[in-house]
């Protein structure tokens, strides 16, 4: 019997569970390798050759090449791993959030300084769906 995933109805959120961990394994192992300078140097010298070392899917590889931060998460990446790719590119956690939310850096930073994103209307997927209909 399958385990019940009671966290799947949270909008705009991908919980990094064992299934995502399995799907994203090689992608995440690639990302974490970039925390070391020698690997950052090798990756930046020749991205394609470096990516060949990691047997990730073609989709995952393309998302890396495109720096498609949301797609990376949808394909099993975890933010703590993808942030290592961000760091390689000189992008901080907050700048990544600006990209993933589609708000851009300035608007996102302003929202945080003003107290962050409210939980009101952001707890359940149906709240976002209804928002989209109106």
């Amino acid at each position: 019997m399958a385990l019940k995933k009671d966290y799947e109805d949270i909008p705009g959120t991908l919980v990094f569970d064992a299934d995502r961990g399995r799907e994203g394994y090689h992608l995440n192992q690639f990302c974490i390798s970039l925390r070391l300078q020698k690997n950052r140097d090798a990756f930046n010298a020749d991205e394609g050759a470096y990516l060949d070392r990691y047997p990730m899917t073609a989709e995952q590889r393309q998302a890396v090449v495109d720096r498609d931060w949301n797609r990376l998460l949808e394909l099993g990446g975890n933010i703590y791993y993808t942030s290592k790719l961000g760091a390689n590119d000189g992008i901080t956690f907050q700048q990544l959030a600006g990209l993933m939310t589609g708000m851009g850096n300035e608007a996102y930073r302003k929202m945080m300084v003003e107290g962050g994103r409210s939980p009101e209307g952001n707890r359940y997927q149906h709240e976002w769906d209804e928002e989209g209909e109106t």
Partner: protein
Amino acid sequence: MARITAGVGCSHVPAIGAAMDLGKTGEPYWAPCFAGFEKSREWIKEADPDVVFLVYNDHCTVFDASFIPTFALGCAAEFAPADEGWGPRPVPVVRNHQVMASHVAQSLILDEFDITIMNEMEVDHGLTVPLSLMFGNLGVDDEWPCLVIPLCVNVVQYPAPTGNRCYNLGKAIRRAVESFDEDLNVVIFGTGGMSHQLQYKRAGLINKEWDIQFMDRLTSDPVGLSQTPHVEYLREAGSEGVELVMWHIMRGALDDEVEEVHRHYHVPASNTAVGHIILANKKDLGVSI
């Protein structure tokens, strides 16, 4: 014997470490965040712990995806700050009370907590940021003023250990500490949180009301609080807010009766609500060994 006299709850946001390392703490953005730790630094100087038992999580820095221990106890002689992609933080190497750590490891396993023993380990911002917040700016040539036993908890891959499990682990840590013969004053840190979501389209979630009830109930209803289901953290405090389970380990290691010595709450540090609390066992207030 060794005794746990107080507990510290504390966020461990990496940007806080960066702000300290880059000398930005006086800037308008950061000043209110750091102001709340001035009293804490005085308090810990007074409390003068011999050992800090520091509960934190690694952020896919030292532990890659190839092995994911739920509880990993640092038993090495020392722990160097790790390179997280921006170069290692310029802070002192963390030194362990290695004899006590191996005693704790043995005691916990016999107490049915099957922890992983780490004889080689670097440490990331999860461990070094709380030390910097509590002990101030120290450079690579300085020493932290006490020994540190790290306990690393998986909160990255779902599921983290339950709050109930964490609370009970705190009790087992207390039994382990109290069965160690050396007269030592131990302060336990539970780190991480508070509400924050770093990922995907809902990034930036902050829930002040929920965070405040969490801090209130550490004193008034710690057992009830430890029963909070994971989905509530994820929904109410953001996907990374589940780090707060580590505060239950700290709380479980204290007496049932504690007094709140200090509290600080500030939004934001980067993407995160900064929460900080100091709880002292009522019978240990003002007492040092």
